[in-house]
């Protein structure tokens, strides 16, 4: 899922200088599950901003709400009146939710209340870790089901670098070396021979390096006129 981390309240408050009617809008999907932008966090942020407003006499009028999926227009439309009513929207969704609102209401100012940090998984209560870079070409079947592109600090394709120390990454001694994990996994599976071939460089053109990516599934399009993939802004 998409993992996010709320910005500091003081940083958010600073962005809102001069605004009056502020809508804090969360999302019930990924950021709710990683406890950064769901119902509870929306309410906490609203209260914290209200306290700042009262303390500093800013006169903010706070409004809050949580959208089912802020990255989908259908769900955002449900809070149309609230958005139109606000002069600043603090999105506690990921960058996708925040931009969906911003693109749907180009006259409105949207402020990011959280930083979209990575694609990851919950490891245990309160711990999330990155496991995918959305590089556009998955190769984990060659690496024991472990992604070296995201889990190795250098995205190595040919085994661990010389900084792998006691199974940990040179960048952070609390982070497991992805390639030690891959080695152990392939050893367990009796497939260590997979680590003896010289692996060709990755084709980064399938990642963001190839430019902004877009998928158009013609079989799913409702309006065939959209088949060029041209963006339709409502």
């Amino acid at each position, binding site marked *: 899922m998409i993992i996010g981390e709320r910005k500091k309240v003081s940083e958010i408050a600073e962005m809102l200088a001069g605004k009056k009617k502020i809508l804090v809008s969360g999302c019930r999907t990924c950021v709710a599950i990683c406890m950064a932008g769901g119902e509870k966090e929306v309410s906490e942020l609203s209260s914290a901003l209200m306290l700042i407003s009262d303390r500093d006499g800013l006169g903010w009028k706070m409004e809050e709400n949580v959208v089912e999926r802020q990255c989908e227009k259908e769900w955002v439309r449900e809070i149309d009146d609230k958005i139109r009513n606000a002069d600043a929207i603090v999105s506690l969704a990921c960058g996708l939710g925040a931009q969906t609102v911003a693109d749907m209401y180009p006259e409105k100012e949207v402020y990011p209340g959280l930083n979209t940090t990575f694609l990851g998984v919950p490891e245990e209560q309160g711990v999330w870790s990155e496991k995918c870079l959305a590089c556009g070409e998955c190769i984990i079947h060659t690496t024991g089901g472990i992604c070296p592109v995201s889990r190795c600090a250098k995205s190595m394709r040919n085994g661990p670098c010389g900084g792998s120390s006691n199974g940990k990454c040179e960048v952070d001694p609390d982070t497991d*070396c992805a390639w*030690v994990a891959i080695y152990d996994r392939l050893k367990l599976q009796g497939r260590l021979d997979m680590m003896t071939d010289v692996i060709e*460089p990755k084709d980064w053109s399938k990642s963001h390096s190839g430019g902004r990516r877009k998928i158009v599934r013609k079989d799913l399009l409702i309006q065939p006129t959209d088949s060029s993939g041209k963006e339709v802004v409502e």
Partner: protein
Amino acid sequence: MSEQSNLEKILSSGKFAVTAEIGPPRGADPTEMIELARKIKGSADAFNLTDNQTAIVRLSSIGSAVLLMKEGIEPVIQMTCRDRNRIALQSDLLGASAIGVKNVLCLTGDHHTFGNEKSAKGVFDLDSISLLNTFKNMRDTKKQLSGEELDSAPNIYLGAAENPFATPYEYRAIRMAKKVKAGAQFIQTQAIFDLDWFERWMAEVRKMDLHEKVHILGGVIPVKSAGALRYMKNKVPGMIVPDALIGRMNRAEDKKEEGIQICIEMIERLKQIEGVHGVHIMAVMWEQIVPRLVTDSKLMPRTSV
């Protein structure tokens, strides 16, 4: 075919080679580096010029090579994948070859979070092994990575590093085999402090006949204090430093002299190991000690082949 490098000639003639490292300055004035080069020139067959080592911004490796070749030094330019993508790496190889650089050491590179530009975007388009393979193909098939033909091929002797002290330990010889497959003709190892460990690794290397396919130069670092050894043991990832060595340094009256003696003993022992074809001296911030180390290890004079 263009002339081989001095280093290649020495290694392929079966002679014991000596390489040493020079760290370029953190500024545009090369005077001190050139003065140092004049002093230590002749004490090694070729000198590695580091590529923004530990991600500290320094005078470039290729720029340093131009300056030091004028002083009669044969450079081994180090190239990392950290700061350049495949376009820049291939371009710089062509540039280096054009100005007469004949040895390149292909590295992935220390992560930039160690350096003094921590907000940098790490490139890592290639890794050390795919870099080796790319350069090998440029030289041998006159083709760049995409498969397009070059107008002319670079003339280059390809080296790589290997660290027997990094995890997974049992993979390290296999990884070196991959580097050889990818194009490495010589290997400079991580600094050796635990010689028993290194010898066990060399036994694995010999079992795989790798010592007959690539020239291995054992890495050494002369140190001036027990603190430096402790630092490397505890703070530098992928280093193994035995406590006994730290104890020996602790007990020594003249720490610098002890550091020199330890390094000389290491070189002497490396000379005895089957399959070790040279030493690589990384006298970080202490390069002027290189002639003494080489002389006292009875490796002088160094002569061009």
